[in-house]
């Protein structure tokens, strides 16, 4: 029974994606919708990602500092630890989990409400491919904008760590900056950005899927919104492991 449900959902998801990734009716409208979504999904997430990254970076740096009080450990490890934590995990995965909550629930409830108020039926009746019209601009916007959010998150997180350590942790700015520059592996940025792209597709497509097939009323829209966040988070965590193994294993 559970297996049947699982495969039905997977099949329905991929059938929806086939409809989504078809040529838009009119490119000018697709561009216009994408710009709207860039603002709604991307630009409107800058503040929350910025604030969270700042405090995450500060907390990571302070925790590293308190765990490396042994004089055997060089002080620059704090900067190095903060940098790698932000690049490898926090700015891509944790930020994606936060975006799943913010953007995912918003997408599911927006599309779900359109479904229950027959707005999607109205689109279909006009001969518009509703899946492509509604979902493709969201996926495109997230894929374009989320890498910038990740890069911004890395920078702000490291800056948060820098401020916390120099103001509260008793570390000199030279030590922290030396650590940030020490043994830098550029591929880590690529790894982080590749993860971000996958997570962007997961958040937008899974949430849109949950909203698109809502049946019922406002209660079901709320449930779809919750399911969108839960399934997005689970898939983000699963793909985090898979991509880490694929990209970082030697």
């Amino acid at each position, binding site marked *: 029974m559970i297996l049947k449900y699982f495969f039905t959902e997977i099949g329905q998801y991929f059938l929806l994606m086939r409809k989504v990734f078809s040529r838009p009716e*009119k490119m000018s409208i697709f561009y216009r919708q994408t710009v709207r979504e860039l603002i709604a999904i991307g630009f409107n997430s800058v503040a929350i990602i910025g604030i969270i990254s700042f405090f995450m970076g500060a907390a990571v740096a302070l925790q590293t500092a308190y765990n490396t009080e042994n004089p055997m450990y060089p002080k620059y490890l704090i900067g190095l630890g903060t940098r790698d934590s932000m690049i490898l995990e926090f700015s891509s995965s944790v930020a994606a989990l936060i975006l799943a909550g913010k953007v995912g629930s918003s997408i599911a409830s927006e599309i779900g409400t359109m479904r229950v*108020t027959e707005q999607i*039926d*109205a689109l*279909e*009746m006009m*001969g518009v491919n509703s899946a492509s019209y509604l979902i493709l601009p969201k996926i495109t916007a997230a894929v374009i904008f989320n890498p910038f959010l990740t890069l911004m998150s890395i920078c702000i997180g490291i800056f948060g760590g820098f401020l916390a350590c120099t103001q509260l942790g008793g570390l000199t700015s030279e030590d922290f900056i030396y650590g940030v520059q020490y043994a830098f592996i550029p591929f880590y940025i690529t790894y982080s950005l590749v993860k971000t792209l996958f997570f962007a597709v997961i958040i937008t497509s899974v949430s849109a899927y949950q909203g698109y097939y809502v049946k019922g009323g406002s209660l079901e829209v709320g449930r779809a919104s919750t399911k969108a966040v839960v399934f997005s988070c689970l898939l983000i965590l699963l793909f985090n492991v898979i991509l880490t193994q694929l990209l970082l294993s030697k």
Partner: protein
Amino acid sequence: MVLTDINVTFQPGITNLIIGQSGSGKTVLLKSIVGLHDIDRGEIWFEDILFNKLDFQGKKSIRKEIGMLFQGSALFDSFTVEQNVRFPLDMFTDMSMEEKTDRVNFCLNRVNILNVNNLYPAELSGGMRKRVAIARAISLNPKYLFCDEPNSGLDPITAILIDDLISEITKEYNITTIINTHDMNSVMEIGEKILFISEGIKCWEGNKDEILNSDSEKLNDFVFANSLAKQLKERK
């Protein structure tokens, strides 16, 4: 099975009504005709085209000739009135912005609403929303107009205004109009051809003059359901 044994032809230039109790299958029938529900058996023809056998692209070409008015209006919440009415024009025509604005204003004038172009659907009354939905439905000059309970949730006077508007537009543009309703005022006002269904089965077919003299027990129960109608029938 929701619908069985329904065989009916709808004519252009007149208002065709599908009537029946709530839950009788009216909306399922209407949505099946326009392809929003897939049917298990049977045939749906639009002139000489077998609609239910068409693929997505084929249905799309027919749907461009269909205007539909949904029960809750189904206006796009994030668009203004003007953007709602302009949407089909943006999607399917190469008209210039000026031409589109002219067409939008013409459609809004035709449904008798003025100076609401920049308002959002949430700022409109129920009757105005229905009018805007009609304006959107006729913006591409449809050959077919489907209306699902166009006057539900409206007061009797506004409901009659909406019915009359649909009837006028039907005649003016020679549209094949099919309306779902359970409102007897609509039936008596604009019912030029009426199909009565009960529990998913076609029970009666006729017009507004014949409906009061029908032998169908189920139809009589429906038509004379309220006490005023019963009194009138008894006096008659």
